[in-house]
């Protein structure tokens, strides 16, 4: 399962450990792993989908198999605050032009931080079992919670 511009198919994503290994002596001299193909001097101004990632870049790998639970995103409630983006430890919240677009399930490890920091009521992100279908999860979304009295 992957989202829009960063789709798995487009990237030819591989399971960690399943990649074809190159011997140490075949790697660029000095054991340099190039993160990009060709000129990389402008990457700070390029979005992921504009970059030429080399196979050595961990962006081309997936850790999806680490997850037992996954975050599901509900666009209807989201206020694009970007809390989830700033605190995701796995660069797995896809934001473009100040808008939250969704989750990069190739890199998400299911830690649940994004759900905790989401301020909406009900939350715009919730954790579900990895096996749960997206539509099913959205259909089960809770109603707005009344403020708990402290």
């Amino acid at each position: 399962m992957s989202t829009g511009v960063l789709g798995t198919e487009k990237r030819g994503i591989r399971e960690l450990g399943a990649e074809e290994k190159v011997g140490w002596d075949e790697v660029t001299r000095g054991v340099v792993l190039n993160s990009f193909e060709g000129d990389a001097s402008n990457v700070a101004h390029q979005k992921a989908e504009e970059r030429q990632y080399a196979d050595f870049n961990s962006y081309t790998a997936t850790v999806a198999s680490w997850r037992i639970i996954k975050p599901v995103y509900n666009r209807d409630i989201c206020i694009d605050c970007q809390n989830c983006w700033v605190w995701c430890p796995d660069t797995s919240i896809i934001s473009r032009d100040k808008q939250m677009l969704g989750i990069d399930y190739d890199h998400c490890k299911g830690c649940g931080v994004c759900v905790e920091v989401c301020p909406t009521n009900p939350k715009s992100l919730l954790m579900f079992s990895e096996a749960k279908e997206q539509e099913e999860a959205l259909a089960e979304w809770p109603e707005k919670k009344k403020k708990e009295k402290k």
Partner: protein
Amino acid sequence: MAITSVKNLKEFSTANDRFEGSHLLCPGCAHSMIVRELMNATDDNLVVASSTGCLEVCTAVYPYTSWDTSWIHIGFENSATAASCAEAMYKARKKKGTLPNPDAPVKFVAFGGDGATYDIGFQWLSGAMERGHDFTYICLDNENYANTGGQRSSSTPIGASTSTAQAGTHSYGKTQKKKDIVAIMAAHGAPYVAQLAPNKWKSMAKGFQKALETEGPCFINTVSACTTEWKFDPKDTISITDLATDSLMFPIYEIINGTELNILYRPKNIIPVEDYLGAQGRYRHLFKPENRHVIERIQKDIDEKWEYLQRREEARV
């Protein structure tokens, strides 16, 4: 020089990440939150050196790298050495006119864990600070040697249970206080020194920008909650960090030129340190009646430190 806007979070979110996913840090690890906040605060070309530790080991597992910048894997004690020497070489080559791209904005950054910073690389860090290189050293302070199974470091606070200072029938965990690395670095005469936390993303991003803009050796200690060794649920990394900054266990402040101290975050409601300690497994034993005195000691130390910081801020000394 265009630098990413950190005016508000929406602006900040337009930064293009240069720290990639599918690194192997634990789910919920604060190391990567901190690295993302820092790297997203600049579009300069970065030359980064990492000391051995979780960050280094988990972000360059052959055949992968998670770094979209120049990055070097160096010995446990040597990130300050590597970054400062790269800076020296860069300067020399600039002078000689042998750089292919002499006008590119390049900044030198070193990362080290608390083991690497407070203990094993302490002498090398001190040397680089004293030599006055133009670089920024970031300590990812999770208060233990996490990558090798949670041994105590000189950053581990009193009362924490670690694999080499274990709480039990005869021990309440570590018996010594945490080393004040921020004061030590400021005493080197460093032009910019700070202690920052990832829950306060804006002061983190701004502090790093300041350090990069400042000529000379800068040092930033960052609080890095470690789900595995502090023993809390990975989803709670930010809320634990909130408890750390709101109890003033980790005050957020900067020291400019060794004297000008500015407190960067004043909690509206200062919470008792018990709330912070109680949220983590490594302090669980302190809540036994015979260990309660340690909690009181920690609270007393915090109160005194806060008083001290406020006085220094006022006095400008």
